[in-house]
């Protein structure tokens, strides 16, 4: 495995995917929180016509010019989506789908038109669609870094504003923050990240790289700061892991899909096992709570039965408790547990009464209920 790591250029591939992963994770956090997960998908598809138009106009493959074109058409698409949703009764899902497919279709039309001109070089649809992480060179890494640093700096500088815009727009407005300005800024960041990422992972997988790290990070924390950093780390980690995995085999496997599958795996693990929000954790908590609830209900039944009879020492059998319990099969176990805890005692064989400690415990529990 390690000799393949010494493949020339792998270092820059790793650095590039790591930077891109971090950037996607952080910026994606805001997109996911603002329910704009699929905006990324629409923008990335919408970059195609801009890319090709700038190629047609300037007739060069200079990445800055291509990226400028892509960014402009991506921004226009984002504004169109917002405009359609705002000014007509067409809902957001439809406006996203229309914008995405029409821009992409228009791009395809331009592309096929260009390719049939004899003087034009092939612009490479496959590269746009699936990216070519494997061909990242030092130059590309520097390029990614020059985009990444200002983007992260902007997020850092306007942290408080972005936080407010994400969670409480009206409060932000009341503080005099221009909400729409920061929303546009966030959308522009999204466009920037997508545009630089397209070359590496391609259109389809770009949206996964924006959404997945943020969703995974969301499961582990309730704090925006932690979430953004964690999402960045998840993104970077899967970028590196994907690049290594796809270079391990003898035949080269496309890097983009491997990265996406890796980050999807992280999402699955997070959804299942993250503390507090994870499904497994939640089920465990549910099971534990229902156990405690059952104990309490058996104790309550026992004490209300005891109260109905004058003699305090008058015990009740398990069979009796089973009759009034909602889950009769659990009664013997619960009674035993209660006895161990000293909340219930056995007055004669097979007959139980609550102890004074048990009565106190119950009184405290019910007072809680009253307070609620």
């Amino acid at each position: 495995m390690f000799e393949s790591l010494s493949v020339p250029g792998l270092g820059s591939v790793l650095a590039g995917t790591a930077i891109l992963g971090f950037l996607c994770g952080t910026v994606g956090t805001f997109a996911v929180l603002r329910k704009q997960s699929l905006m990324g998908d629409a923008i990335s598809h919408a970059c195609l016509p801009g890319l090709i138009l700038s190629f047609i106009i300037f007739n060069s493959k200079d990445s800055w010019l291509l990226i400028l074109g892509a960014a402009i058409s991506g921004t226009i698409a984002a504004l169109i989506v917002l405009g359609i949703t705002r000014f007509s009764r067409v809902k957001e899902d439809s406006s996203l789908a229309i914008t995405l497919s029409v821009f992409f279709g228009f791009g395809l039309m331009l592309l096929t038109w260009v390719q049939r001109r004899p003087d034009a070089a092939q612009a490479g649809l496959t590269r746009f669609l699936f990216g070519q992480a494997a061909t990242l060179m030092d130059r590309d890494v520097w390029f990614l870094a020059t985009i990444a640093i200002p983007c992260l700096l902007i997020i850092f500088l306007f942290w408080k504003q972005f936080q407010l815009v994400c969670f409480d727009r009206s409060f932000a407005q009341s503080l005099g923050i221009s909400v729409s300005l920061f929303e546009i800024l966030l959308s522009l960041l999204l466009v920037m990240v997508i545009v630089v990422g397209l070359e590496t992972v391609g259109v389809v997988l770009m949206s996964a790289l924006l959404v997945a790290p943020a969703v995974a990070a969301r499961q582990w924390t309730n704090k925006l700061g932690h979430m953004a950093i964690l999402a960045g780390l998840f993104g970077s980690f899967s970028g590196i892991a994907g690049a290594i995995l796809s270079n391990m085999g003898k035949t080269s496997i496309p890097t983009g899909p491997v990265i996406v599958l890796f980050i999807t795996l992280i999402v699955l693990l997070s959804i299942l096992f993250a503390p507090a929000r994870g499904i497994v954790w939640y089920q465990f908590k549910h099971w534990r709570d229902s156990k405690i609830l059952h104990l309490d209900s058996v104790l309550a039944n026992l004490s209300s039965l005891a109260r109905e009879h004058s003699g305090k020492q008058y015990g009740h059998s398990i069979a009796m408790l089973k009759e009034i319990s909602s889950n009769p099969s659990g009664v013997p176990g619960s009674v035993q547990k209660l006895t161990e805890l000293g909340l219930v005692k056995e007055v004669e064989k097979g007959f139980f009464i609550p102890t004074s400690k048990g009565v106190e415990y119950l009184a405290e529990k019910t007072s809680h209920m009253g307070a609620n």
Partner: protein
Amino acid sequence: MTQAQIEIQLLAMATAVACSLCGVFLVLRRMTLMSDAISHTVLLGIVIAYFMTGDLASPWLIVGATTSGVLTVLMVESLQKTGVVREDAAIGLVFPALFSIAVLLISIFSRNVHLDMDSVLVGKIALAPLPSRRMEIWGYDFGPKSLMLMVAIIIMNLGFIFVFFKELKVSTFDPAFSKAIGFNPYWIHLGLILSVSTTAVASFDAVGSILVVALMAGPAATAYLLTDKLSNMLAWSCIIGMASAVLGYWLAHFLDASISGSMSTITGIIFGFTFLFAPERGLLSVWNRNKVRNRKFKLALLLLHLTQHEGTIREEEECHIESLHLHLRWDEYEARSVAFEAVETYCATQENKVLKLTPKGRIIALESLQLGTNLN
């Protein structure tokens, strides 16, 4: 037109109709992005079915693709039901993952197989009339296979809509009511997903995955801006779909460019045009309506102002045409133009540049004060 051209256009129109029919319900149920997800993930079903049968023409490919489309939707929904992931994020997680698996499977196991990505996205409608792709039964040529398939899909979709029209309607517009009268909307939901998947798979071969999305969302959303009636929306959607198919074909023909790309471009142009100019809900008519309403309101306000000062000492000053804008706090030009409108519509007369109410103007002013008076 040659026979091949006619056949391509027929196929494009058939695909457009099949997609538009499903699209109407997707748009109304806010599920349009499912078509995006499905059209990507059918690739996985095709790849797996291909590995199992080893035949690119096998009907199992369609079964596999449809199954993976349905599975995609079910996965998105179950992810959503866990409550930890929202719908948009769930879609954004599921389809790239399944698509990645498909791309990896292709790149690992079938390097030399003709399953290239470009044709997946772009489709190969232009190849449909080729001799190898025709359906011949007992030596009689029935036309391209994909055209026959699309016709079958249209019949299936129409049948589904026709038989379950009432159920579709109630479960789309009022799922709670549907449940209350004892009809579980989930079955219709499943049926719809099944028909969307089948349609996407069948269209996929002809026009590619992106145009499937364009044809499902575009015509239906355009129709949504034109009518309030479900049956009319279905009809409009089909007509717009067919129009985009034919116009798109000729655009592609003149530019010598991709047919499916041109078709989705035309879909977008038609939607944009409708968005701006639709008679009831177009941007321009909404703006226009607001302007007219605003104008009527201003006129009523002016007439009220006149009633207030009618016969008072300050009438000369308050109702003087030169100083109206000061009292009403309007723009000078606007105040004057509203005043002229009042005179022109015989709501007021001008005496020495002072406005006087006519009986008609008085009635309008008093009516506008009454609650519930319609300013329209």
